[in-house]
C-alpha cells in the first residue's frame, strides 16, 4: 500500500506546537500527468547506469509501498519533531 498521509508534529518549549498533515495521495496527480517524462528520465538514467529499468521501477515501487508505518521521533533541547507515515 502506498503511503497516504504524512503527519509532521513540531513543538518548541514555551510555544504551541503544530501538526502538519501532508496528503501524500495527492502526489499521484502530478505523477500521472508527468509519467511519460518521468519514465523517459528513468529510462535514460537506467541505460546510462546499466541497470534494468523494470527492476529499478519495481524496487522503487516496493520501497514506496513499504513506507507506511514509519515513525521517527526526535527530541532535543526541549524541541520535538515527530514524523509518521500512514
Amino acid at each position, binding site marked *: 500500500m502506498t503511503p497516504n498521509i504524512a503527519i509532521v508534529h513540531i513543538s518548541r518549549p514555551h510555544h504551541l506546537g503544530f501538526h502538519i498533515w501532508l496528503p501524500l495521495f495527492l502526489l499521484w496527480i502530478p505523477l500521472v500527468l508527468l509519467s511519460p517524462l518521468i519514465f523517459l528520465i528513468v529510462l535514460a538514467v537506467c541505460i546510462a547506469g546499466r541497470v534494468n529499468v523494470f527492476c529499478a521501477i519495481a*524496487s522503487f515501487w516496493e520501497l514506496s509501498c513499504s513506507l*507506511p508505518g514509519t515513525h*521517527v521521533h526526535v527530541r*532535543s*533541547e526541549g524541541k520535538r519533531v515527530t514524523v509518521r507515515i500512514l
Partner: protein
Amino acid sequence: MNENRRQILDMLAAGKINADEAERLLSALEQNPSNATSEFTGKTSGGATVKTRAKYLRVLVEADESMTGMKGQTTVNVRVPMQLLRAGVRLASLIPAQAHQQLDQALSQHGVPLTLSQIKPENLEELIDHLEDLTVDVNGNEGNATKVRVFCE
C-alpha cells in the same frame, strides 16, 4: 520452497509439532500466502512456541549533553517497517557491479567493513531472520548516560 514452509518442516523434523499441526499450518499458509506475519502465533499442543515474524525495526537513542553538546537530553526514536529494509536491500542489488568495489572501499575507509556484493536478495530473508533475533544495548561509560537500543518487534 519458501521460508515459512521451511520453518514448518524444520519444526516437524525437530519434533516441536506433530503431523496434524504441520498440516494445519501448511493449509493456513496456502490459503493466505501473502500474510506471513499472522499464522505463526501462540503455542502448539506440544508446548513449542511458534515465533511471530517481527514487523518493525526499532532504534532508540538517548544521549546526554556531554555526548551531543546540546542542552538537555537528546532522544531519537525510529521505527522502520521490516518491509522497508527488504525493499532497501533489493534496491542495493540494482547498483552496478563495477560500482560495488568503489562503494566497498569508500565504506571501509569510513569504518564500515561491509561488502555490498554479498548482500543479495536470495540471502535477504536469512539476513532479516538474524536481524529479528538481534538486540543491541549500548550503555555509555564513565558516567555517560548514553543508551542505544536496536531491536525488532
